[in-house]
């Protein structure tokens, strides 16, 4: 029962980016982690706890990586304020665990000295000791401890038991404020003196880094290698995910069928089968793609390649007013804009981040593919171009390119509109290459999947319920001649907004389908099926619908809808995640507004030109 008598301790982990802090956090807390946001800002708050051998509970807070307490950006501000005990929701931590990369003490020690100046109880965790040994770096731990006046403990965050000494020390020793009074000495000189006295260092960098950077950042080979890697990632995302996606679709389809078969026909049955099961399934189906994508992003991140990709692309992106760091969020957005917007957290400059969030929906997400597939099959003749290329495939490729080009133009316009013209910083550390650690990969994947699920389920469920109500009530009269949806609110709205969309060639059927299509873009396909009263399995609907659409719509209308879907402003989940990440309805409004305006303009031009050409 002694556990009850020992007071719990709260510790925070601080350190430079790339010091292995998150791996240490994973090592300490395992899967017992909670990820939330600090109040009012979009800085991630990662918390966990563990029980020390004495039975004491130790609460751990993993603070964002920082180079200095002279904070730049929201991440570093939070780190500074928590260390100084100024964040009410956290309180002053009992112990600050300053984590330093043992292979890069020259940079890391400066921040340690800055933290030490705060005069709070702290320990130094010398992390990555295994890598330091391998590189022949010798650290005199006692000497270092004496010079710093704080306990120094060695850790290997990626090995089992690598944090044992740290846990023991926090559990059994009473940790006090640093024994050395702050001086006014130049901090760089102090670091140099400490390194000279306590550290021996055979060479400046790992050879392997020089060799890998020589190839991967080569001005000639660097970009082709990046392109090849991205090609492999995309192949994997789209090819590997297919069986899993089919499985999920099958499962939800089966569940909906079971409900239809075994529940009495009526409103409740329709609600459970259509709104709950099919609605949530229509978004969950993207989970395999998103997980595979996240897996690759995590591998690239952990290995140290990701900042290199940003390095290669920075100048190109800067011309459009973006940063090299925007590359990954935009890449993710090809699977789905939700993880893409979430991934913008790695962009430190707030203006760059907002621009990236704004253009993320222009990357053709996989939810648009079913719509493209339907329209291309219905309106684009299948023929060979230059003997080898499929014309339909080229059109699809063109739609992707159109999205990317519009994104670059929008980013460029945003750059012109900025009031603060000071150039954004790149100033990015390229860490040493590392082999990704499976445990950290698994935890990272688990965490991101969890965030995705929590983010979407609430929104999707609410949106689907609302849309179901709109599409179901009022109900069709007994002697109805039109499909039931025609009599519903959705039908009324479709008819009411039809005049707005007439100039761009949309029929009222399309207008109705756009409304349920707000839950997820590809739902528009099944909604069109409903409007044209086609029922049956999904494949049957798609086939029949293709024939119906080809027969009933003009070529101009088909092209116009294709152009609309390049911008497709009507994804509620994307808008919801933008709201969460920016904490601003105004920004959501701007994004939705400009997407809508561009979609309308593009459709109008496409419709008018096609009509002129086809007569």
């Amino acid at each position, binding site marked *: 029962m002694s556990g009850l008598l020992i007071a719990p301790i709260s510790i925070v982990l601080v350190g430079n980016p790339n010091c292995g802090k998150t791996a240490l956090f994973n090592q300490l807390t395992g899967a017992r982690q909670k990820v939330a946001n600090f109040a009012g800002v979009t800085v991630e708050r990662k918390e966990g706890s563990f029980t020390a051998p004495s039975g004491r509970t130790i609460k751990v807070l993993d603070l964002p990586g920082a180079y200095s307490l002279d904070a730049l950006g929201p991440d570093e501000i939070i780190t500074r304020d928590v260390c100084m005990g100024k964040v009410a929701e956290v309180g002053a931590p009992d112990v600050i665990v300053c984590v330093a990369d043992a292979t890069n003490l020259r940079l890391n020690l400066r921040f340690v000295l800055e933290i030490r100046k705060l005069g709070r109880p702290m320990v130094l965790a010398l992390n990555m000791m295994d890598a330091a040994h391998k590189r022949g770096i010798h650290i005199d731990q006692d000497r270092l401890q004496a010079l710093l006046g704080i306990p120094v403990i060695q850790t290997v965050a990626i090995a089992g038991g690598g944090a044992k000494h740290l846990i023991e020390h926090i559990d059994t020793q009473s940790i006090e404020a640093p024994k050395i009074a702050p001086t006014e000495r130049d901090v760089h000189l102090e670091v140099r003196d400490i390194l000279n006295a306590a550290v021996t260092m055979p060479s400046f960098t790992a050879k392997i880094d020089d060799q890998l950077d020589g190839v991967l950042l080569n001005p000639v080979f660097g*970009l082709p290698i990046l392109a090849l890697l991205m090609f492999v990632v995309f192949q994997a995302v789209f090819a590997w995910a297919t069986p899993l996606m089919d499985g999920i679709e099958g499962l939800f389809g089966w569940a909906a069928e079971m409900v239809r078969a075994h529940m009495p026909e009526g409103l409740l049955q329709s609600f459970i089968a259509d709104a709950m099961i099919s609605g949530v399934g229509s978004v969950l189906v993207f989970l395999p793609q998103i997980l595979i994508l996240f897996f690759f992003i995590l591998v690239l991140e952990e290995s140290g390649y990701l900042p290199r990709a940003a*390095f*290669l692309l920075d*100048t*190109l992106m800067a011309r459009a007013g973006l940063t090299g760091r925007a590359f990954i969020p935009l890449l993710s957005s090809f699977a789905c804009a939700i993880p893409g917007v979430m991934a913008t957290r790695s962009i430190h400059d707030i203006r760059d981040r907002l621009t990236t969030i704004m253009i993320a929906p222009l990357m053709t997400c996989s939810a648009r593919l079913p719509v493209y597939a339907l329209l291309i099959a219905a309106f684009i003749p299948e023929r060979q171009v230059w003997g080898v290329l499929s014309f339909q495939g080229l059109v699809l490729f063109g739609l992707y390119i159109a999205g990317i080009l519009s994104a670059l133009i929008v980013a460029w316009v945003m750059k012109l509109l900025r009031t603060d013209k000071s150039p954004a*910083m790149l*100033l990015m550390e390229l860490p040493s290459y590392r082999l990704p650690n499976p445990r950290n990969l698994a935890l990272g994947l688990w965490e991101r999947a969890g965030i995705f699920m929590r983010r979407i389920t609430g929104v999707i469920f609410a949106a689907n319920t609302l849309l179901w109500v709109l599409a179901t009530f009022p109900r069709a009269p007994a002697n109805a001649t039109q499909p039931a949806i025609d009599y519903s609110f959705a039908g009324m709205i479709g008819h009411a907004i039809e005049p707005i969309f007439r100039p761009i060639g949309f029929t009222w059927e399309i207008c109705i389908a756009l409304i349920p299509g707000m839950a997820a873009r590809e739902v528009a396909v099944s909604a069109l099926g409903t409007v044209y009263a086609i029922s049956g399995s999904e494949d049957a609907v798609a086939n029949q619908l293709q024939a119906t659409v080809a027969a009933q719509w003009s070529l101009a209308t088909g092209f116009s809808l294709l152009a609309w879907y390049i911008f497709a402003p009507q994804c509620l989940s994307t808008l919801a995640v933008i709201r969460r990440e920016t904490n601003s309805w105004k920004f959501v409004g701007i994004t939705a507004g400009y997407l809508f305006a561009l979609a309308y303009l593009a459709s109008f031009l496409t419709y008018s030109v096609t009509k002129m050409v086809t007569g």
Partner: protein
Amino acid sequence: MKLSDLPLHSAAIVVDVADLSADDRVGRRLRELGFVVDEPVKVVAKGPFGAEPLLIQIGFTRFALRRAEADRVQVRTA
């Protein structure tokens, strides 16, 4: 000479890191990252477009800097 004019892989020493404005956060941050007088420095890679950004080795760390950022750092060849 300016750090941004330093040829690839040639060893140099930092002479000065000048602020370009009164409250130059890039200059401040560069000094915090270790760009201080007498520190050995070299350019280890250049980006594929317009030889930008620069990959700078300072101490044990590599930083990607845009040319405009690196312009604050004056070096002499070692």
